[in-house]
């Protein structure tokens, strides 16, 4: 994974570690924090290194203060001093501007707040260095600003912050130094002031950035119509429509009704109101490992998921030759890199797994596609492939609902963007005239 990497992070600095997915950033972070051990080399720590995980390592069914004090509980006789624990969490929150209700159950919290809890948990352990692994992946622009102001406050107190990211905007806005990792090796390390964006990007991927196909104007009839949709506890009075050959982007902070909207459109959750959509539909779920694939199964079997009856051509048995042919078609057309279509899917990189998921959703040319964070956690090359295929589907006349927490992705792909907050649409931007600041404000509107 990693090969002769050396890295220093000094007290009081924000050090950005960038690289494509699979470059070894998370592994490096885990080794630094002592969660994994390296084969050779050594880690020199002055004090504790805290790690804020990419996929938050919180215990969902414990409340905030329980997560924060776990393993070092304040005691009163044999019991946990709950008053002290709550006060401790509140004080810590105030000191770093991380405002959280100590008694909230973690599983009830939106992603942005969960990250604060994760931060609090690490801060409670007085780290000398804090590693943040992809901290902004699911945050709204406002929350990103807030996070970095917290980090800045930390560095003023003498803590070193190593921020792992692939968003170059953040690097150039907040970091003092940047280290670029590619295929487990350090390929570039410089103060931010001495390097350009383009240089960093080239260093990351070791070549030119793939380009995304261009938008061609289309003018289709409306194929998806949602009127007055309501999903209990998530969405109220939501209406929208999508035309053939159109990508409708949905911007919003995670947990504001996007999942309910996608599920209602996919027919996975009960709803009130009317949904008018084509029967043929391709779905790219948001959580690949949990919702989209069966990692222990082969590519062939994964390629059939949801299309298993089609693989039998209507008969009760599965035509294995046809299934293999279809899988091969997906692998070839969507550039899934694998040694064999019979290999377990788990042996593939995340990007290649995702390409299979996208291919499965698009191969039958459905008239309607739901894409939910289709490029979350995959590398630039795979991202480019996925974006290209989504645009190709659009250009063939598919209506596409694109839910993404990355505004850049929405801006690059969408024909139209709606902003969702607290279960309702708060604004619409048409004709590819997207105003980042206005969208950011609407995302956090009540």
């Amino acid at each position, binding site marked *: 994974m990693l090969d002769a990497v050396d890295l220093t992070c000094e007290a009081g600095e924000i050090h950005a570690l960038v690289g494509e997915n699979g470059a070894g950033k998370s592994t490096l972070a885990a080794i630094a924090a002592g*969660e994994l051990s390296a084969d050779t080399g050594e880690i020199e720590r002055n004090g504790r290194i805290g*790690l804020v995980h990419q996929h938050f*390592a*919180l*215990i*969902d*069914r*414990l409340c905030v203060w*329980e*997560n924060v004090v*776990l*393993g*070092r*509980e304040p*005691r009163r006789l*044999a*019991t*946990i001093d*709950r008053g002290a624990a709550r006060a401790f969490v509140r004080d810590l929150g105030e000191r770093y501007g991380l405002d959280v209700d100590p008694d909230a159950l973690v599983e009830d919290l939106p992603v942005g707040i969960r990250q604060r809890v994760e931060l609090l948990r690490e801060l409670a352990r007085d780290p000398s260095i804090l590693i943040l692994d992809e901290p902004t992946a699911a945050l709204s622009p406002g929350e990103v600003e807030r996070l970095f102001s917290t980090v800045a406050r930390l560095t003023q107190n003498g803590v070193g912050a190593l921020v792992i990211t692939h968003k170059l905007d953040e690097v150039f806005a907040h970091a003092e130094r940047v280290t670029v990792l590619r295929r487990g090796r350090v390929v570039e390390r410089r103060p931010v002031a001495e390097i350009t964006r383009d240089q960093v990007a080239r260093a990351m991927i070791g070549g030119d950035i793939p380009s995304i196909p261009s938008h061609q104007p289309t003018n289709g009839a409306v194929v998806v119509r949602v009127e007055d949709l309501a999903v209990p506890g998530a969405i109220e009075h939501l209406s929208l429509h999508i035309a053939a050959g159109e990508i409708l982007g949905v911007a919003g902070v995670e947990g504001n009704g996007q999942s309910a909207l996608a599920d209602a459109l996919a027919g996975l959750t009960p709803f009130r109101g009317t949904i008018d959509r084509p029967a043929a539909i391709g779905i790219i779920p948001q959580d690949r490992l949990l919702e989209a694939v069966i990692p222990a199964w082969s590519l062939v079997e994964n390629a059939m998921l949801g299309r298993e009856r089609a693989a039998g051509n209507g008969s009760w048995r599965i035509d294995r030759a046809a299934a293999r042919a279809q899988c091969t078609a997906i692998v070839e057309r969507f550039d899934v890199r694998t040694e064999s279509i019979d290999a377990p899917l788990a042996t593939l990189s995340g990007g290649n797994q995702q390409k299979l998921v996208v291919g499965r959703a698009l191969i039958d040319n459905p008239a309607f596609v739901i894409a939910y964070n289709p490029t979350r956690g995959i590398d630039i090359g795979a991202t480019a492939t996925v974006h290209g295929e989504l645009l190709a589907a659009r250009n063939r006349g598919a209506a596409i609902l694109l839910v993404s927490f990355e505004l850049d992705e929405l801006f690059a792909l969408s024909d139209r963007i709606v902003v969702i907050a607290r279960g309702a649409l708060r604004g619409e931007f048409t004709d590819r005239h997207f105003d980042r600041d206005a969208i950011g404000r609407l995302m956090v509107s009540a």
Partner: protein
Amino acid sequence: MTLSLVLSLLALALVRGTPILLASLGGVLSERAGIVNIALEGEMTAGAFAAALISFFTRDPWIGAIGGVAVGAAVGFVLGFAATRWRVDQIVAGMGINLICTGGAAFGLIFVFNQAGVTPQVPAINQALWPLVILGILLAAVLQWALSRTPIGLRLRACGENPHAARAAGIDPLAVRLAASAIAGALAGLGGVFLALGELNLYSDGMIAGRGFIALAAVIFGRWTPLGAAGVALIFGLLEALQFALQGNIAWLPSDFLQALPYIAALIALLGASGRYRPPAAEGKPYP
């Protein structure tokens, strides 16, 4: 129905429910730590047999009782060890333990007493029956409190929900799971002791009669909380007591139906509960 009849019914419900309650508390502990425990039946059997055996040879029922609890704990330890260190599938291990314990006790009867089926009468602790009932209920309350209020309880829950996060917080999930499984065995063993030395004064093949499995149902019905499981165990005891009382008094209702009453009631309760039964998130999953 007179007051004394109601009281005797409630008393019977408590006696009937307590062994199930004790085993279900064990089940709650081990499952909250992340170990599926279908071995409760075997642990109760081992506890009951060992208690009768030791009481017979030492002529001291208290040593017998302690021995029964210890043997239950040892069986729980074996389950925990297989599940954590060997990473054996927990359900498979539990099945194996049930088979070994029931078979082993039957075999032990022949080997030790040279008679099949049942031990001779042994010194018992019948006078401790009610203290044990009260102990069971107190234990449920104490465990409820300990799980939510003490550092150990918090750490145990953390291991059942997300052992990786627990590890990151400096807790050894394997040790916690092993300990929880052993304590669970001890509690189930105490359930067996209650039957063999508290209510009766012997061990007899088949005397556990599915109580360990009912305890497992109580764990799930009680939503993995000590008080919940205890409540379900006692309600189950009450239904059995009712069944006992009604038999012969309702001529048109066959006794077989009445005997099935508690189980039918449980099914109906399942219907109504419309199950948001969420087991601990990492239950049954080996770590690491």
